[in-house]
């Protein structure tokens, strides 16, 4: 137990250090979301001038959707690329040779990259408050937890999916395969309820909806925590399933 803890700490520290050293990477990851959010703001402002669209879709929903999408996207893409790079270059097998166990590797990576997602979540939430005039009020802790957890779960999903990739190309293909359906089925631009039953069911396979829908409900419809806790539970369960599957499919011997 102590040994496992030690291993996870060593892995987390290593990743945190690598992130810290790569200034350009960190700069892009922190500034990139701001640029995206600013574009979303301009789009939302422009669309709001068209009366028909204003009635059809509240622009706040778009902003919230993009907050979630940015975190989901970054968590997923970032982790996929890093894991596949480790696998292809051969550092991952050195990690395994050094007696790090599969679940320790997964947990360590999850913690390490969660630090980056944490920083991103804070930046995105602060920026969106001022850009979109969103009033978080007492809902802030809930929203923060949801967005951050979404990022963590996206990392877990990425680790699971990238276990099936043998080359960089395989991992690249997985990015649109996961992110485009998530974009459509996550309640970002239209409610999931309008879709046929089977597609609604399919939407549960993508983590975006677990965070996006409850945050919209809380901020736009004024729903309380009691009404949306199931989504939070769903997100946590999704994460647990992904980590378990990831740990089972990660091979330390080919």
């Amino acid at each position, binding site marked *: 137990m102590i*040994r496992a803890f*030690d*291993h996870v700490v*060593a892995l987390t520290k*290593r990743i945190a*250090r*690598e992130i810290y*050293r*790569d200034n350009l990477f960190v700069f892009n990851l922190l500034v990139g979301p701001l640029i995206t959010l600013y574009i979303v703001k301009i789009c939302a402002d422009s669309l709001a001038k068209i009366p028909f669209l204003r009635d059809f879709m509240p622009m706040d929903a778009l902003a919230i959707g993009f907050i979630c999408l940015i975190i989901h996207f970054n968590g997923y893409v970032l982790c996929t690329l890093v894991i596949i790079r480790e696998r292809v*270059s*051969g*550092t991952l*097998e*050195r*990690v*395994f*040779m*050094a*007696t*790090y*166990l599969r679940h320790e590797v997964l947990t360590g990576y999850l913690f390490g990259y969660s630090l980056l997602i944490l920083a991103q979540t804070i930046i995105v939430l602060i920026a969106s408050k001022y850009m979109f005039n969103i009033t978080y009020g007492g809902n802030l802790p809930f929203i923060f937890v949801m967005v951050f957890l979404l990022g963590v779960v996206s990392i877990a999903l990425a680790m699971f999916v990238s276990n099936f990739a043998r080359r960089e190309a395989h991992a690249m293909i997985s990015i649109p395969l996961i992110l485009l359906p998530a974009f459509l089925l996550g309640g970002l631009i239209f409610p999931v309820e309008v879709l046929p039953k089977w597609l609604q069911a399919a939407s549960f396979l993508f983590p975006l909806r677990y965070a996006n829908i409850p945050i919209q409900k809380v901020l736009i419809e004024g729903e309380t925590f009691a009404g949306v806790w199931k989504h939070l539970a769903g997100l946590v369960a999704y994460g647990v399933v992904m980590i378990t599957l990831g740990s089972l499919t990660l091979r*330390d*011997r*080919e």
Partner: protein
Amino acid sequence: MEELQPEQRQYLRVSDVLEVEVEPIGAGNGALRKESTLDLAGGGIRLAGDAPVKPGDVIRLKLGIPGEGERGTLVCRGEVRWVQEGDAEAPGRYLYGVRFTDIPDAERDRLVKYVFSRHYGIRKQEGVAISVRNLRKNYGRIEALRGVSFEVMRGEIFALLGPNGAGKSTMTRILSTLLTPTSGSAQILCRDLMKEKQEIRRAVGYMPQAYVLYDDLTAVENLRFFGRAYGLHGRRLADLIDEALAFTELTARANDLFRTFSGGMRQRLSLACTLIHRPQILFLDEPTAGVDLKLRKSFWDYFHHLSETGVTVFVTTHQMDEVEYCQRVACIHEGRIALDDTPRNIRKLGLTRAVFVIGGERREFQVQDFDSALPGIIRELGGDAGRIESVEIYESSLEEILRDRIMGGVGVGR
């Protein structure tokens, strides 16, 4: 416990000095030639003693290198740079850092290697280290290994030689538990390869062909990351890191990022990371591919030092001249072991061409073993034997023997 400062840690720990003698010469009397000061791994050595020396004192050291007898005694002079009153490392005594003032390069290397192997901590043991029985590996329809069997003894330097694509990497990866064989069995240090993966991983070190480590970590951080995996920490880990860095001559670059390293330095750090936990068996996949001749020589020196300590070294190579450095060679060709013997015996397989110049005429004989064939040749020459003017002897090199007999002369890189 008082922790040593980082600069103090550059002084390697030496545990068994035979004699330390404080010389009457003090500092400042010109005895120290600053410009010729040779340091050891960026620092010197640290040792424990009773003599209350002061920084600046010059002391004479006599170090005994075990197993080398009289030749193993090393006498040198050093200046005391710092003194610390006893701690966990030297309870009730003084710990001092000594920087050498007059140590030749060769002696310095001997000392570093001694410190490293002295602290390696495994005792030389008899017995089988690696035992492979009828191992097969298929990649789809390609048969990479077609039933390979061999044994490697403890402390042996064993080379798996073969052209590109012969199955060397596959073999190394299977034995270091990274690849599952299709059939057959193997034991590493009497542990089953399939069932006791973690135990084997703790006891062996694997250096992949591509010397990959983490670009954004420094040499020390890379070493620490791998050391931590084996439960090493604190002073012990710091000591192991210092020794590994000194052993691979990287102390000066200890705090530089891996991505700033040249190819040879990367290779050396890769070796240092493989050695950090003092493995009993080393699996090295083409460790000398792409390194210059000087580094290659020092790599083989390292391996010999490790082997003397009792470490089994399993090396793959396609460079036949390296066979000379090994104690046993197995040639793998098209997934089978074609030859498995000592370099000396392999050499006997070669033909010797002897040319006798008799009265301006050249008469040529081709024999397997020149020494035992010579009487026969002389008998055959009969009366001409008395008129022999000169004899030219051409022995086939190990490389030629291997190329002709095993590989059929195809595709073997040099």
